[in-house]
């Protein structure tokens, strides 16, 4: 595919990194209002891109505006939620941890409820059906279909509740019926301290595969009846284990974990697809061109050499990339460097290659004009050069500038051998005659042309000019 030619390894990292960031945002903010609003913003952005694609100018502008405003609002409105998510987690949890849901399970609620009932000596009869249908076995009862909770169970078995003497049937996470009458066991060898609840529990366990929990009103003791057997419950751990075995809860947990893993995998895949889509929308239109003129920087020059001439000081770069990236390119982000490490005195010809040019990510070089640069280097030498004042303007009428004296009248200059070879006089900056009405002294700066010339250390950079002004003879 032709566009794959433009994908570099940096682009792959780019996509994967941003996909992971998006995935982590999902993991951290899922099931919060922030995530829902973020999803809304993402949808708005997708609509905006579609509107741009179809050339819907007003729609795209409106979408863009709403997206920008909503993005600002989300930070202000949901700042507390964002802060709680980020503060509650350490760096490891933010970067790669997976928060586990801490919603209490049905078993935990039943265990807690039974403990509370036992502690208060409130008699209770709780039926947990298995595979067999119980409708033919029990009688009466009131359908409830209420979500299970500790408070709900406790209140059902409260002494003043009209249905407190009956049993409750729990199906999945709901209390299906209350005040149910169970068949009694006719066993004659039951312990004497067992009451009607125990007999009812045993009766149901004899005829079905259900598990029945009994809380004794007199003693507060808890027993579990299943498969014609009654088991005393001494510890929470054993009670939990019995309930788990009955409900096959290990399998449920595995299913839950598998569901979570599936959800995460889907989220990860969507993140990769989403970011890849954004990346391609940025990279779309790689034929977009821009031409920039970038100055050439010369590096690794031998300190005793001097650049006396270069065929160009700047090169024109024809750059390609997506429209969005090209628009954001600033000339300061681009560098053209020529290594003069192997250059010699005289003419040197350098080709400007891809290695000479530093470009921002996602921007590609199409063409360089010129592709070859000629650089002339010269050896740096010192030379003593006479000075001369560059007078300008007009002396006041009737006066003659008859003589001058300069201190110094020569100066030592450092520069390229070729340049200095052609220079026999160094001039001052322009000195105006208009105000010279009488003999005096002035200080003048030197005009170092070309700028590559430098005054040698120890030499003065200003010239003191003593001048003599005389009246013009009649």
């Amino acid at each position, binding site marked *: 595919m032709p566009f794959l030619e433009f994908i570099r390894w940096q682009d792959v990292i780019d996509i994967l990194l941003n996909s992971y960031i998006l995935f982590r945002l999902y993991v951290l903010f899922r099931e919060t209002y922030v995530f829902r609003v973020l999803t809304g913003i993402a949808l708005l952005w997708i609509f905006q891109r579609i509107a741009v694609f179809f050339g819907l100018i007003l729609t795209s502008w409106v979408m863009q505006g709403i997206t920008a405003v909503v993005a600002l609002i989300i930070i202000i409105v949901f700042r507390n939620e964002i802060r709680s998510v980020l503060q509650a987690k350490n760096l490891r949890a933010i970067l790669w941890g997976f928060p586990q849901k801490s919603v209490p399970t049905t078993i935990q609620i039943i265990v807690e409820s039974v403990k509370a009932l036992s502690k208060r000596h409130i008699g209770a009869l709780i039926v947990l059906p298995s595979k067999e249908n119980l409708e033919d076995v029990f009688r009466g009862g009131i359908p409830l279909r209420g979500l299970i909770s500790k408070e709900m169970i406790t209140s059902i078995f409260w002494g003043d509740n009209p249905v407190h003497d009956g049993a409750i049937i729990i199906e999945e996470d709901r209390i299906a019926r209350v005040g149910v009458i169970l068949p009694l066991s006719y066993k004659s060898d039951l312990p004497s301290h067992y009451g009607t609840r125990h007999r009812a529990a045993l009766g149901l366990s004899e005829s079905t595969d259900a598990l029945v929990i009994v809380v004794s009103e007199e003693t507060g003791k808890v027993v579990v009846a299943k498969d014609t057997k009654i088991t005393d419950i001494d510890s929470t751990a054993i009670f939990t284990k019995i309930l788990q075995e009955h409900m096959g809860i290990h399998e449920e947990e595995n299913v839950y974990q598998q569901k979570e893993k599936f959800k995460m995998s889907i989220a990860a895949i969507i993140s990769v697809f989403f970011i890849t889509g954004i990346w391609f929308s940025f990279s779309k239109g790689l034929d977009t061109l821009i031409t920039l003129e970038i100055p050439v920087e010369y590096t690794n020059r031998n300190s005793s050499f001097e650049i006396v001439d270069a065929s160009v000081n700047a090169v024109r770069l024809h750059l390609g990339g997506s429209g969005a990236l090209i628009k954001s390119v600033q000339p300061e982000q681009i560098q053209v460097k020529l290594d003069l490490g192997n250059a010699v005195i005289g003419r040197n010809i350098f080709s400007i290659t891809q290695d000479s040019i530093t470009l921002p990510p996602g921007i590609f070089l199409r063409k360089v004009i010129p592709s070859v640069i000629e650089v002339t280097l010269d050896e740096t030498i010192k030379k003593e050069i*006479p000075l*001369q*004042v*560059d*007078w*300008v*303007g*007009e*002396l006041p009428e009737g006066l*003659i*500038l*008859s*003589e*001058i004296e300069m201190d110094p009248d020569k100066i030592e200059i450092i520069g390229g051998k070729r340049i200095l070879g*052609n*220079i*026999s*006089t160094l*001039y001052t900056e322009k000195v105006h*005659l208009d105000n010279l009405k009488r003999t005096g002294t002035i200080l003048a700066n030197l005009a170092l042309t070309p700028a590559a010339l430098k005054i040698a250390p120890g030499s003065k950079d200003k010239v003191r000019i003593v*001048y003599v002004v005389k009246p*013009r*003879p009649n």
Partner: protein
Amino acid sequence: MDIKLRFIIVLFVMLCADLFSSHWSFSQNIQNSKSSTTQKKLVMDLGVMCEEIKDFTPQNPAVTFSIKIGKVSCFTSFDPVPEKTFIYHKWFHRDDPSTKKRLTLQPPRWGTYSSIQLRETDKGPWRVEISDQKGNLLRILRFSITD
């Protein structure tokens, strides 16, 4: 040869040279041959830039000249002049050669000068390099043409 006759001849030569160039030169024996001819070394005893030459004397020597005066001269005199020789006046506007004058010197003493006509483009620093016939630099005179 009579002094006046020699002066007329020199003046004629000078005018002929002026027909071929805007620059012209003039030389004159400023004194009869009293000086000794035994000295062998050419010595330049005066070199000035001036507005004009009058009575074989440089007038208003200076280091800046207004372009309004239209002409500037470089006057040099030599004492002694051991033998007939010539010197050069090389005029430079900044570092660009402008003109080069070959001026003859006659023993025992001789004064001579060269001039240039000034144009608007001549403003700026100038120098005149005076050298002998072997090219040895005798002196550099520096001046400026201003408004």
